[in-house]
């Protein structure tokens, strides 16, 4: 325990000739939740895509547990303990609930442990257990959210990257998701990097708030300070 699970130093990335991220530095200590917040187009999703290797950085370093991730192919990152739940959540609609979940654990060599992880996810998300044989596209938005999260969790990640988990979901479901993240952090020491438009619910659960603006980190501060310091909130978040 202790130390930073994720360290990002002077990271720059973009799409083709268009730079999006500039000189991004951030640290996420092990066993904490960091919320990346900011307006549309601030570079939040680009940051996650660069962290999980979908987008190649043009400069800077990404360290997971002190190890440089440069040159690690996307499909290897899950073996390093990183799980990325993409925007829109990436449930494969043509596969069943069970197949989606199995897919999340396929890379694990220990089949017994993978089987246990699958059972745990079914206990965690009861509706999924009832819909094992249903296709992904037959699920409701909330169930898809559970499936995407569950599929990431069967891989027993150390770092969970979540892109807009509240998008298109009812407030009650958002609250449940945030409560679950807090529980996973407290019980299993999971580290979470969360990208959110829904600033209030993100800061309610996070330990650290990272405010992005125009592709840069404008402010990184304890979430409690961002919640409680009205001046800071006005200056950086506009409410």
């Amino acid at each position, binding site marked *: 325990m202790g130390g930073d699970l994720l360290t990002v130093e002077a990271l720059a990335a973009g799409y083709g000739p268009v730079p999006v991220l500039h000189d991004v530095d951030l640290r996420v200590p092990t066993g904490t939740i960091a919320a990346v917040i900011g307006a549309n187009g601030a570079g939040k999703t680009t940051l996650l895509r660069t962290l999980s290797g979908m987008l190649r950085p043009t400069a800077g370093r990404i360290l997971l547990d002190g190890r440089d991730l440069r040159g690690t192919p996307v499909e290897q990152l899950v073996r390093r303990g990183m799980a990325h739940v993409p925007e829109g959540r990436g449930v*494969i609609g043509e596969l069943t609930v069970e197949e989606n979940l199995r897919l999340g654990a396929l*890379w694990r060599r220990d089949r017994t442990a993978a089987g246990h992880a699958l059972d745990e996810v079914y206990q965690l998300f009861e509706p999924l257990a009832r819909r094992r044989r249903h296709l992904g596209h037959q699920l409701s938005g909330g169930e898809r959210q559970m499936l995407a999260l569950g599929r990431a969790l069967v891989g027993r990640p150390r770092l969970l990257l979540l892109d807009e988990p509240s998008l298109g979901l009812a407030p009650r479901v958002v609250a449940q998701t945030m409560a679950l993240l807090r529980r996973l952090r407290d019980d299993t020491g999971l580290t979470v990097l969360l990208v959110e438009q829904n600033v209030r619910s993100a800061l309610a659960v996070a330990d650290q708030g990272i405010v992005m603006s125009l592709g840069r980190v404008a402010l990184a501060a304890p979430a409690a300070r961002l919640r409680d310091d009205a001046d800071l909130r006005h200056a950086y978040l506009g409410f």
Partner: protein
Amino acid sequence: MDRFLFLTLDGLSRGAVYAAFALALVLIWRAGRIVNFAQGAMAVAAAYVAYSVTAATGSYWLGFGAALLAGLLLGAVVDIAVMRLVDHRSPLNPVIVALGLVLLIQAVLGMVYGNEYLPAQTPFSRTALTVGGTAVLSPYDLFVFATVGVVGAALVWVFTRTAIGLRMRAAAFAPEVSRLLGVNVGGMLTLGWALASGVGALAAMLVIPTELGLHPHAMDLVFVSAFTAAVLGGLDSPPGAVVGGLGVGLLLSYVSGYAGGDLIPLAVLALLLTVLLLRPGGLFAPVTARRV
């Protein structure tokens, strides 16, 4: 009535081969959104490998195994050495490259083996057995049914029951998400090409002895028929490919039996045109296509 029965059974036997060949097209289409126009030429190349091995060893079965192996390898090589290097942003690019491969493979086969028909043997008799005075299936027809049935069942098993099949389906449906979950998407695509090309080689081994013999162009018309079968079933649907293959086999058997063999190419093209005009998604077009 006897003639109708005979034509039906003969059509189903022929259709089984079209079904296998159409299935190979569907496999690659699902994996990489490419219609592999080179599949006929690749399958013939594998059949020539069988010819050489059988000529050298005297064993049909060694040649048969060698053809399947050559088919698998050729599929993997075509993906790694050719298709991966093609810019897929325009869907036309891989099509043109595949057509180029056809010319290349057929030219090389012609140079090595000559552009003459070579005799192709069958492992079982092609003389139809008679039941109660009616000519029905030959032992070779039964072999064709059994082989296509076993291979089809094996493919279903691999895709629905094994981890590698799950990976292949996931990689085809959602490559980006699959990579995030640790699936080697490029490897799955190569495996898809290998499997498809292996099935194609099998179809060539089954059908070539029933036609004029081995020739660089031996699979050209079979390819058109199987392509029609795949489109008829809906390019995305493996069961559609099987039903389409059997349907095309039956149709061609009736056309050649009642109207004359010369009309077969015309009948295939007429059917293809009708399907494309009336139901371009195919009979088994997935329902999800209507969702938004």
